């Protein structure tokens, strides 16, 4: 228990002194997670919406698979990305291993199924509501997807935030593909894992609280900007 207080204290100290290392790894955490979020959203929002509006033979199987992929173990994703990017792997020549880019790639793979699943579920309701009208207006597939995403943007917020949460808190994959190299690929979560291994629980917790504070900050900022709750579901 004392350690929890010590952790809170450590977090406090880290923040007020604006510790240089802390600022560096925090910014890198944000950079990696937000990049992964943007890329994953660009894939998952249209794809999840498309799944909601399209009937095809293997639709149910596709959805079940997508849901299953939410359980992709980060360590395995990390391994596969590692093998692909390692110098003996097919993309080895690009020299991406142990760079933030590699971490972003791994995170995109991890959070895309999550965002797509939640999007699909949210868009099904809206599609049920809009179905007749959009078909009647002879919209193209692309117009349907765009309309649903636009009118459902507030319900899609949860999807994006869930993806962001998963990315910012994830450690297994980025440890393998990033390597937790000081001043190059160390982010908050890998630093926490490191301090835990060292047995410096107070510092680990301190960094953890900083991470949680960061997540809170991002969420409050997004909520404030989007004013989700102002007018019911509209």
């Amino acid at each position, binding site marked *: 228990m004392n350690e929890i207080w010590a952790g809170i204290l450590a977090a406090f100290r880290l923040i007020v002194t604006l510790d240089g290392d802390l600022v560096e790894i925090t910014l890198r955490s944000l950079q990696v997670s937000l990049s992964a979020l943007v890329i994953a959203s660009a894939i998952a929002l249209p794809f999840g919406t498309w799944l909601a509006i399209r009937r095809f033979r293997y639709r149910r199987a596709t959805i079940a698979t997508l849901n299953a992929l939410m359980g992709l173990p980060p360590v395995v994703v990390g391994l596969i990305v590692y093998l692909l990017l*390692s110098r003996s792997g097919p993309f080895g020549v690009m020299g991406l291993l*142990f760079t933030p880019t590699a971490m972003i790639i791994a995170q995109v793979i991890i959070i895309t199924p999550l965002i797509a699943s939640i999007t699909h579920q949210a868009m099904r309701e809206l599609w049920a509501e809009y179905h007749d009208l959009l078909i009647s207006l002879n919209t193209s597939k692309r117009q349907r997807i765009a309309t649903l995403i636009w009118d459902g943007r507030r319900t899609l917020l949860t999807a994006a935030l869930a993806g962001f949460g998963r990315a910012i808190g994830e450690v297994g994959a980025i*440890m393998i593909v990033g*390597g937790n*190299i000081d001043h190059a690929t160390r982010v908050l979560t890998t630093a926490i894992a490191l301090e835990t*291994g*060292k047995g410096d629980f107070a510092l680990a917790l301190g960094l953890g609280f900083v991470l949680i504070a960061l997540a809170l900050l991002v969420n409050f900022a997004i909520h404030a900007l989007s004013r989700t709750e102002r007018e019911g579901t509209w």
Partner: protein
Amino acid sequence: SMRMAVTTSFHNSGLSDVLLPEIKADIGLDVRLLVVGTGQALKLGRAGDVDAILVHSKAAELAFVESGFGTHRREIMYNDFVVVGPGDDPANVSSATTAIEAFQRLHAAEHLLVSRGDESGTHKKEASLWQAAAIDPSALGAWYKAVGAGMGASLNTASGLNAYIMSDRASWLNFGNKGELELLFSGDPLLFNQYAYLPVSAARHPHVKADAAQALERWLTSSKAQQLIDGYRIGGEALFVFNAVP
């Protein structure tokens, strides 16, 4: 049954897979291993969450006993550290005669080098070697990658980067992802790595299984253990040398 915290290097060597079944057969003790970093192992001991620890970081161990968390420190065996690196050996480490010279060559070549960077026994050993070579490890260039991870993860990173790394011999021999890495330097007594057994103090934590810990200690220092430890080989190489004083 009892719980023992051990370091990754010990577990990754594979020795535990040989010893544990024998212990179970001989004294009927079910030893549950928690494989963690050295620092975390000591923490678990302090908190009384394990009954004994087996680590390799002498100064920290002595402090642990000093402050009353452990009853005593019993040396069991040692293995050694090796320097591993790219097969073409750009720093020419393989022709060094002493560990200090090897480290000086690493410094001169400035080829990529991965350091555990996690204040584990291995990391502390590495730091002491830099010091012995009159080099300040905190002032090295971008070629010095402090990865802050366990032995296995660090080896994976070194393999991915085709970089030098100092590893314990056991982890290295058991490591599957060798890539183009090869063992380049070993044998200097400076590189010896002493493992010690520390039972957690029952005076401090009345719930610990002192009897079991004692029984295990007796077994670990027995001639049966000596046979098994000295006889444990991977690819024909011995990994550990038993040196407990009976």
